[in-house]
């Protein structure tokens, strides 16, 4: 069994028939698949109520030392988001910030998103951003250049399965942006995407994320297990890179 840090997980309910969403169910999943630490964002905060969701996540983190969090921000609510940053981001249990442009409708390179980035930039903590398609990757590119010390994790490594436009754009962008990381989760997993990513940017900037509790971690473990890359590269992806990036 691999030793794993999961850098992309969600805590909360889903609008799908997914029952394994309680802390106990999540712990059971972690034990079954060797997941040592998990970094969550709140589903509620991402899809609905930012403050309520971050509060729920904060309570989870108080009870479970192996769980960590991202503070989710909503660029439609600038002042409230700044309050969330002040409330949570200094905590050792919150390791970064989560932005989801698809739910908020605010692109990562919008003036509102960038105002928030300026606000949390001094904390020196990574940003996990839902990155889907070429437009998502282009927005990350703009922000990565504007904030060169900000470590940006491209969730889903650009997404867009089958034709691969998103993930290929993400790989190409990451190659020239040393402050970016590729996180691998997603439902459609084109064979070869991991090897192509490793060949282009190196295994050191690829991170394991599962999208749990939306996606089964073992589904994504299968992606890395089947990837045509050396075992050492898989160990970096599953564990070592996240340990280094988040000082875990």
């Amino acid at each position, binding site marked *: 069994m691999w030793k794993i840090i999961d850098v992309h997980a969600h805590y909360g309910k889903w609008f799908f*028939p997914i029952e394994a969403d309680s802390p106990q169910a999540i712990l059971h999943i972690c034990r079954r698949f060797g997941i040592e630490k998990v970094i969550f964002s709140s589903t509620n905060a991402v899809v609905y109520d930012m403050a309520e969701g971050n509060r729920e996540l904060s309570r989870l983190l108080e009870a479970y030392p192996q769980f960590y969090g991202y503070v989710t921000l909503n660029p439609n609510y600038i002042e409230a988001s700044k309050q969330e940053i002040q409330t949570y981001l200094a905590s050792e249990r919150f390791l970064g910030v989560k932005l989801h442009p698809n739910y908020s409708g605010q692109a990562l390179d919008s003036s509102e998103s960038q105002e928030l980035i300026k606000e949390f930039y001094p904390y020196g903590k990574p940003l996990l951003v839902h990155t889907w398609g070429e437009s998502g990757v282009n927005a990350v590119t703009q922000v990565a250049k504007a904030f060169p010390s900000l470590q940006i994790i491209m969730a889903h490594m650009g997404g867009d399965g089958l034709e691969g436009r998103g993930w290929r754009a993400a790989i190409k962008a990451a190659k020239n942006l040393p402050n970016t990381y590729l996180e691998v989760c997603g439902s459609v997993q*084109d064979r070869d995407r991991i090897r192509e990513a490793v060949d282009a940017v190196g295994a050191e900037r690829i991170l394991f994320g599962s999208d749990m509790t939306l996606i089964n971690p073992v589904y994504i*473990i299968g992606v890395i297990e089947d990837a045509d890359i050396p075992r050492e590269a898989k160990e970096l992806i599953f564990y070592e890179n996240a340990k280094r990036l988040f000082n875990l």
Partner: protein
Amino acid sequence: MGYEVVDANTLFGFYSKRKVDSSKEALVQELKRHGVKKALTLSMKGIYYDHVLGNAETLQTCAGEAMLLPVATVDPRKYYGGKNELRSLVETGFKAFRLFPDLQGWPLDYAPFLKFLEEAREACKPLLFPAYTAGFITKAAKLTENHGFPVVFTSVGYWTISEAIAAMREAAHVYVETHLLDSPDAIEVLTREVGAERLIFGSNMPLSYFSVALLPIVNAEVSEEAKAMILGGNLLKLLEERG
């Protein structure tokens, strides 16, 4: 591994959308590496170019490789029925049909497709059909009601599980292929709600990673008997029931 794996969802041929080795040789090599016993397959030529040429290629390829079972396709943008085409395909050895409205861009309310369904009654082979968007399973399950052949919905994921369960409770001829069932308890929930006998393993090889499809089933918290049914028993039964 201990399971007899039969894969309902594989393809081969040239893939123009990105650079990938999707040749028959690559497919067979990967299937053998993962211990797959048999696999339904078809040439992508039949999806993206010409279904007549594609079916011929599928048949020829499968004739030379015992583990591959031929699946026929028709493209309703070209096919309009009335020529006993489906009967001929069955007579030449095809084990199932598979259609691709998602990739070919035709709707369910489409006369050539309805004609296909009419003629497929006589052919009476399993039909594999994508469930790529909300509402699709609902409509397709109703359209194929009382036709006498099973419909296996591919590409069911967390976004369509609810619809699949509701449809399967109403329609005994509906099955779900598993390669995109990626939510943490998808196999457990479906097994409990509709029964493991309604789940059919597929991998989407060689376009996807095989273990992505396999591991959620092998690791599911369902009985060993249920896993064996999902991984191969159910599909073999469907195929055997229809020659």
